[in-house]
């Protein structure tokens, strides 16, 4: 391969010399002829040393810049970012944990409050029930007392009414008997009236 290249290059050089000679013979500008590609410029072995020399310098500079400055910096930035992301994720996890705890505390407080409220409600209800019971009992007693009094009064009224009616009936009977000219036997009249009234009052 190398020998082929060398052979090619020597032919290329010969060709280029021919071309330059031709160009000069035809009256073209010599500089133009030199700048023009004759043959394949890649195979012009006379420029290889120049290219390789500058290439090696370039690669050395590039390698130095990359390995000393650029790559460590990029690696640091990327690892920083990775660290930041991990840190943020951990912080987020922590916050999540905290939120969970807060939620649990809230739930607990809610449950406690609910139980407390239930207790208070139950106590109040018991108290009210007691008061209510007492009031009802009191009212019942009063009602019973009133009822008994009314009963008594009604009984008295009835007694007095009966007594009045009897007296009136005896008087009226005695008067009637006297009017019709009979002798008034108060005892017989009374007995008769009572007898009658017993049947009526029954």
């Amino acid at each position: 391969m190398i020998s082929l290249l060398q052979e090619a290059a020597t032919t290329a050089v010969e060709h280029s010399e021919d071309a330059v000679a031709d160009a000069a013979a035809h009256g073209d500008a010599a500089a133009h002829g030199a700048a023009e590609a004759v043959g394949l410029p890649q195979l012009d072995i006379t420029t290889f040393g120049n290219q390789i020399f500058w290439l090696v310098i370039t690669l050395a500079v590039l390698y130095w810049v990359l390995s000393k400055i650029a790559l460590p910096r990029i690696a640091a930035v990327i690892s920083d970012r990775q660290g930041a992301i991990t840190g943020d994720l951990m912080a987020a996890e922590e916050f999540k944990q905290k939120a969970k705890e807060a939620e649990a505390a809230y739930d607990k407080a809610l449950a406690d409050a609910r139980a407390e409220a239930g207790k208070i409600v139950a106590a109040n209800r018991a108290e009210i029930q007691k008061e209510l019971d007492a009031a009802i009992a009191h009212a019942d007693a009063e009602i019973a007392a009133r009822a008994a009094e009314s009963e008594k009064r009604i009984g008295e009224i009835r007694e007095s009414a009966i007594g009045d009616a009897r007296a009136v009936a005896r008087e009226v009977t005695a008067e009637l008997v006297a009017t019709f000219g009979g002798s008034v036997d108060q005892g017989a009249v009374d007995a008769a009236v009572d007898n009658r009234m017993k049947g009526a009052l029954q």
Partner: protein
Amino acid sequence: MASEGGLEFHPMDQFVVTPLFGDGPVRWFTPTNVTLWLALVVLATVALLVLGTRGRGIVPNRSQSVAELAYGLVHKMIEDIAGKDGLKYFPHIMTLFMFIVFGNLLGLLPKSFTVTSHIAVTGVLAFAVFFTVTAIGFIKNGVHFLDLFWVRSAPLAIRPVLAVIEVISYFVRPVSHSIRLAGNMIAGHAVIKVFAGFAAIAAVAPISIIAVVGMFAFELLVAFIQAYVFTILTCVYLKDALHPSH
């Protein structure tokens, strides 16, 4: 020669190495257009990887994310192909990648010179990879590095034949490695120039301009893919050196 035809310029003119100052002969130390464009490659790399990342932001800006993309691409490539122990050579491979990718891309600028289109340049790169990788192989594995050529998974009878093929393919590696890159660059740029040359003929000028645009877009893709391929093959060779058993 072809230059005597209707073309206004020769498609290969763009590859000529000329001195930057004056008309003198090209000696090995003469500053030439190669020097200029090599320096521009270095400047472009520094601009992207050093100036671009000077913010060191946790949240990257545009140039920093491109730099990190390049870093991540090469880093992942080495890790996937050559394994964790290949990461020791990360700066070397990154240097290769950045050099080739910027050499290719800057070569696409009009009136520019494509450093990676020269067999001298790509040959140095490929042979550097070849010799380094071979040296690493022998240093890391000693004689066992030769297992690379002795395919134990094959039947014993055909192993010698395979060994010959493996040895030949091993020594062809740097040649194909360098000529692939240089050939792609030469071909692409020459084709663009050939199409551009046809633009001088009025009748076909519109087609030729459209073709130049299309080829240019294709060459942008090729410029990146060839840098990628060169790097990935370097990783493959490195893997063979680090883990020679098939």
